[in-house]
């Protein structure tokens, strides 16, 4: 199948996903299950990656601004900008595409090849909506929280370097971080995050939902889910950046 048929089938699937839901109480339970399963378990890795990358970004900024005429608070300013504009929304979304995307695809793919999806359909339940909608909504809810955590911990990582090494002063760093704060940067980051969350959930669900065969194909779907989510995120990142920042 070529890109065009995949794209067509992807949008047909989305049409099915957003057709009227089955029963509110069931969806509510599924939503919380997914938030727990997909989101809560991702906080650890997000915090871990953000602290270390934040620290590295700050150190790089310090070495780039190694000019006695430029004051140290610029390090805070530069670190904040990189983390909020690009690292937190984009890099963390890519990491989540790997972690959550593969989980979604293998979960739905397994249900497909073991006829669990047929079992849902035969009861007259819209399986696409029942399985995929709660996952999409869960990611739209949890990913922005993860990204905000990432921003906070990334900036915190830069502060740690200032506090515990002689490279620059933590006080100057913090004054840079809090200087001339631009609200729109956060909004821009969150808009990207919502788009990316939708991509991760829907592209991965698509790969899982149309799995054919057995366990090996489930593995392949899971790999494809990550690869395609990443590609779409990268392209979308460029498009959104141009639209929102220029």
């Amino acid at each position: 199948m070529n890109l065009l048929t995949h794209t067509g089938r992807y949008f047909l699937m989305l049409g099915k996903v957003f057709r009227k839901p089955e029963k509110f109480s069931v969806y509510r339970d599924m939503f919380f299950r997914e938030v727990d399963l997909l989101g809560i378990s991702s906080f650890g890795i997000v915090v871990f990656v953000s602290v270390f990358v934040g620290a590295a970004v700050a150190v790089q900024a310090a070495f780039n601004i190694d000019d006695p005429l430029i004051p140290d608070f610029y390090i805070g300013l530069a670190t904040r900008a990189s983390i909020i504009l690009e690292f937190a929304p984009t890099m963390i979304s890519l990491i989540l595409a790997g972690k959550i995307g593969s989980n979604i695809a293998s979960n739905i793919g397994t249900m497909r090849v073991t006829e669990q999806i047929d079992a849902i359909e035969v009861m007259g339940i819209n399986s696409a909506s029942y399985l995929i909608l709660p996952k999409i909504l869960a990611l739209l809810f949890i990913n922005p929280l993860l990204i905000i955590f990432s921003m906070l911990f990334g900036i915190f990582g830069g502060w740690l370097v200032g506090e515990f090494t002689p490279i620059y002063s933590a006080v100057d760093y913090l004054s840079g971080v809090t200087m001339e704060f631009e609200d729109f940067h956060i909004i821009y980051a969150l808009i990207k995050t919502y788009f990316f969350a939708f991509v991760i959930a829907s592209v991965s669900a698509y790969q899982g939902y149309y799995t054919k065969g057995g366990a090996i194909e489930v593995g392949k779907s899971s790999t494809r889910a990550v690869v395609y989510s990443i590609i779409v995120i990268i392209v979308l990142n460029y498009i959104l950046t141009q639209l929102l920042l220029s």
Partner: protein
Amino acid sequence: MIRVEDIHKSFGDNHVLKGITTSFEQGKTNLIIGQSGSGKTVFMKSLLGLHEVDSGQIFFDDRDFSKMSFDERKDIRKEIGMVFQGSALFDSLTIEENVIFPLSMFTNDTIEQKRERANFCLQRVNLENVNERYPAELSGGMQKRVAIARAIAMNPKYLFLDEPNSGLDPKTAIVIDNLVQELTKEYQMTTIVNTHDMNSVMEIGENIILIKEGLKAWQGSNDELLSTNNPDITDFIFSSKLFQRIRKASN
């Protein structure tokens, strides 16, 4: 009763069902037999709308299922129970939650009522003390029984089973067969069973349909099967030495 008129189904060039016309009776265990790959699963899934047929009609007690949309089919689907070949239990749910699943979807019962119904169904298939376990923790035969419990949870009028005995030892297979037959009589369901298990054919085959090369090659009861001279039947069933002997003895 379920009636099928001239149904066709192809996958690309592979013409699997080439015009099957038959009917399945209420209160009986109707068997679909045929070689592996002959299209039994495709036939069953076509009856259920899991595959859309290319042409032909399917009537559930005179309601033309084949012409209906997904939403229009819902009322009939609530009257259908299906046991898939691999059981198809929801592996992220406990046994009890599996049986409760259709009840949560389609009834407004309280959780106590749903639990009670689930326990009743699990007891009906002779399963106890497994409510809190997960499907992966049960044997194949037990999973099959859970699948049957889930299928009867909504008190269906029509019960479908795709090779319920595959992968089971002969003793467990007979337990499942007898259970299916008992439930069929007790609730006067129209039961359709895909099988290539000849023991099931002799035990519970009240109305047997042989599918060969996409067509219905023979239809009759297990008694008739022993005496027929239909070459497809003799070829399929009596290729086994054991059944040759049974046939000799019965004639």
